[in-house]
């Protein structure tokens, strides 16, 4: 029997189903986007780790262990009393290369304004 009350109930049920499908679709879309984003971040971070393992990041100065045979190749830093300082003109993200004259070994340093630039990766990306 078609009554006003039954029509209201039917509208409510249809509305509820509509909202359910809408939210489900949007959730699926977000999930897909997030997964693509997480995958891209993982790939890029792997590449960055590959590069950055050779660099020692520093902001103000670095205490060097052995300075006798070390020379600065890049001319954007200087060594004073066993401490490596960047030149005043050295800009953010500038590479400083030191070389041991005897062994020819290279040390790569990266001068950065602040060390807080590394983004905080969500825990879910590690697993």
């Amino acid at each position, binding site marked *: 029997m078609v009554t006003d*009350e039954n029509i*209201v*109930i039917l509208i*409510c*049920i249809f*509305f*509820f189903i509509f*909202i*359910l499908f809408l*939210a489900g679709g*949007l*959730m699926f879309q*977000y*999930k897909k*986007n*997030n997964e693509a*984003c*997480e995958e*891209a*971040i993982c*790939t*890029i*971070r*792997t*590449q*960055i780790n*590959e*590069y*950055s*393992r*050779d660099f020692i990041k520093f902001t103000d100065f670095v205490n060097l262990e052995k300075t006798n045979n070390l020379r600065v*190749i*890049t*001319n954007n830093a200087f060594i004073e009393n066993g401490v490596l300082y960047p030149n005043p003109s050295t800009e953010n*993200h500038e*590479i400083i*290369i030191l*070389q041991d004259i005897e062994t*020819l*070994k*290279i040390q*790569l340093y990266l001068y950065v304004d602040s060390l807080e*630039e590394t*983004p*905080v*990766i*969500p825990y879910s990306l590690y697993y």
Partner: protein
Amino acid sequence: MESFIAVIVFFIISSFSFFIGTLMWKNRYNEKLKKILKSSQKELEFYENNIKIIHKQEKLKIPLEGLTILTGNAFVEDGYLYPTPEVAKNQVIVIQSSLNDEVYIYKYVYLKRYEQTFKPARVESQVKLLN
């Protein structure tokens, strides 16, 4: 009957609120990921511009004159750069130009996990850069 309708309406509204809340949370997480992706891309771009990755199977053509291999772990033969047999895995090769004192950093990559993401096009662009 009225109380039954009220229960249904309440159920619908609470479900709707729950879904909206979940969507907003997902959106926030998505924005966070996008931010991380952007900063990571910027960081990678910096490294790519400064360090030239060479796959072990790739041959890098470099000019014969005007370049000095500072690290001593590579040599030039017939215009191509080769790492010495003793070169350690992922060791950095530093070459300096005697013309403008510019320093080029190269790195031979052996790791398998990098091979999956390695793009040979990068080496081609490096060769163009040096030539």
